[in-house]
């Protein structure tokens, strides 16, 4: 714990304040100032230049009636549901690694897990984009090779989706109906390195005696997961759940690179962050973009509040 100082001594140590000045200045200029500026400018009609006009709540009124914005909230909710589902493989993998008997194998798998992290995120993203390519892409080749494509075409005929055709390659990122399914397949098998490492850290706290007791009672592997492992990593699961929701809500890098700044064909991949980016840097409506940012901000702040109130992270 830091040593408390008497005011006299503190006065003598005034130079210490110089130590915090750089950090403070940086944070004030590049974090607090932009945040304040965003709130301020959301009430203006502003093109990013010197001219701005106070228009009160007009930006927010416009946002209320903006069908693209609400459509993007719908899309992002679907993406959140997808991402919740995509948490499962990481949990499964952490439990499997934890149950391995040899410590060396456990460490080996941890290292192997980290290996994908040495590929820059953007490169992974572009390789996946390349997988989705209709003509050269790996995904279509796999579907052709395994005969799954014929199945998809049959299902299409059955349900009348009008998406998959016998003789045409599947345009994963160019057909509006396929944008969301593509975003779902994205990143298969959905192992998040960081996620698995968090869960492993949580599992590490399970004492041997718990397993021994379970063993004596003849508890099977699935029940072990349900009654021993899951409750113990529930904190971590909840934590990553809330971080995931917040991350998905704010994120738009993936959609921007994969589908372009208009959210892809039919705007099916439009998310709120991307719409903000689009309004600011494509349409030049900086004031309105700030208002969208504020709406998003309020949503996330509420979630953070709920998180802090109801989801306790016990150390």
């Amino acid at each position, binding site marked *: 714990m*830091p040593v408390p*100082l008497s*005011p006299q001594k*503190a006065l003598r140590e005034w130079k*210490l*304040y110089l*130590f*915090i000045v750089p*950090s*403070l200045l940086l*944070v004030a*200029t*590049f*974090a607090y*100032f*932009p*945040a304040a*500026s*965003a709130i301020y400018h959301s009430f203006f009609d502003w093109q*990013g230049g010197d001219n701005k006009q106070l228009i009160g709540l007009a930006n927010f009124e416009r946002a209320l009636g903006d069908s693209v914005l609400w459509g993007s909230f719908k899309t992002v909710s679907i993406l959140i549901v997808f991402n919740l589902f995509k948490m499962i493989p990481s949990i499964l*993998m952490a439990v*499997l690694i934890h*149950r*391995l*008997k040899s*410590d060396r*194998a456990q460490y080996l*798998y941890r*290292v*192997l*897990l*980290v*290996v994908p992290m040495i*590929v*820059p995120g*953007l*490169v*992974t993203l*572009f390789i*996946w984009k390349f997988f989705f390519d209709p003509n*050269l892409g*790996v995904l279509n080749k796999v579907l052709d090779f395994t005969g799954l494509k014929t199945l998809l075409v049959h299902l299409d005929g059955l349900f009348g989706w009008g998406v998959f055709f016998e003789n045409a390659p599947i345009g994963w990122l160019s057909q509006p109906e396929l944008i969301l399914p593509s975003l779902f397949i994205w990143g298969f*098998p959905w*192992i998040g390195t*960081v*996620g698995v*490492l968090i869960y492993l850290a949580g599992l590490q706290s399970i004492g041997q005696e718990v397993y021994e007791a379970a*063993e004596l009672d003849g508890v099977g592997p699935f029940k*072990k997961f349900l009654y021993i492992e899951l409750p113990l990593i529930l904190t971590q699961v909840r934590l*990553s759940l809330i*971080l995931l929701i*917040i991350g998905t809500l704010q994120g738009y890098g993936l959609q921007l*690179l994969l589908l372009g700044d208009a959210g892809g064909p039919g705007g099916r991949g439009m998310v709120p962050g991307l719409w*903000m*980016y689009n309004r*600011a840097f494509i349409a030049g409506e900086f004031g309105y973009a*700030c208002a969208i*940012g504020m709406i998003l901000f309020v949503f996330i*702040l509420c979630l*953070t509040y709920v998180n802090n109130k109801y989801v306790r992270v016990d150390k």
Partner: protein
Amino acid sequence: MSALKDAVGSHRQKDWSKHLVLLAFILIELFPFYMMLQVSFKDNASFIQNPWAPSPPFRVTETYQAPDGQPLVKERDATWGEVLSGSPKGHPADPAYQGGELRFDLGVYKVQNWGFGLKLIGPYIANTVFVAVSGTVASLFFAILGAYFFARYKMPLSGVLWGAFMLLMLLPGVANIVPLFTLLKDLSLLNTLWALIIVGVAGGQVFNLFVLRNFIEDLPKDLFEAAEMDGASHFKQIIHVVIPMSGPIIGTLAILSFLSKWNDFLLPLIILRDKELFTLGVGLIYLDGEYVKQWGQIMAAYFIASIPLIIIFLFCMRLFVRGLSAGAIKG
């Protein structure tokens, strides 16, 4: 010992089934990496002919009877089937086909892709190394100073200041990017690498301060007192006590900070206009936007973009694994 180990998992169930599942996961996870590596040695023609496996080191010379009576020689990469059976497949349906020959040729591996890749991406890597290294060093330097301030004494106002930093952990940064852009414009920092460095340093302060403060608080107080007895100023105490004692945590934070700067693309995309200033993020996006793509060259460029991270990984694997777990706990 082994009885104790056995307690984790079941006695009856052997581990091989778990290994099988885990290996399957890992293999799929590493598949993009594999594709990147093997495609980087191909040109588009051999990639279309054989997308999955590395090419065999053989080429086929095919002779055709051209309509004017002259023999026409065509060359292509051999397929694995031809290499295994030892003879070229031939084209029985084509009357002009006269015969083919299989010969060993290491030229099927397009090593020159790597040269092109390096030319494509080298300047971007140089810019990114500059931004990431100077940003990481500056970020950690300021964070150590700040953390020392909070950890050493409980100064008047330090509670308030701490709160001001921690509040930022809760605030989402999403709304910031638009005003940040105009702020950088007003500071005439648009289209400079300095903008990336400064914003990166500012963005890293909160987390680094948080971790370092906790760490420095746990250092033994006697060390500081002894240094003070010897007349060391606060700055000297940082240099001679704090930094030597917190090597691993600083290393971990440095890796996390370097990684995040290496992967950053949104801010550079908005800020940078000149091609000479592009960092890796914008550079890769720019490459992706080209219409006719030589996948081999692009994949080689992708691989080259990963090399600095691979080097760090090889040298600091432990820090890397731990760093990611630490980053995990921060969330």
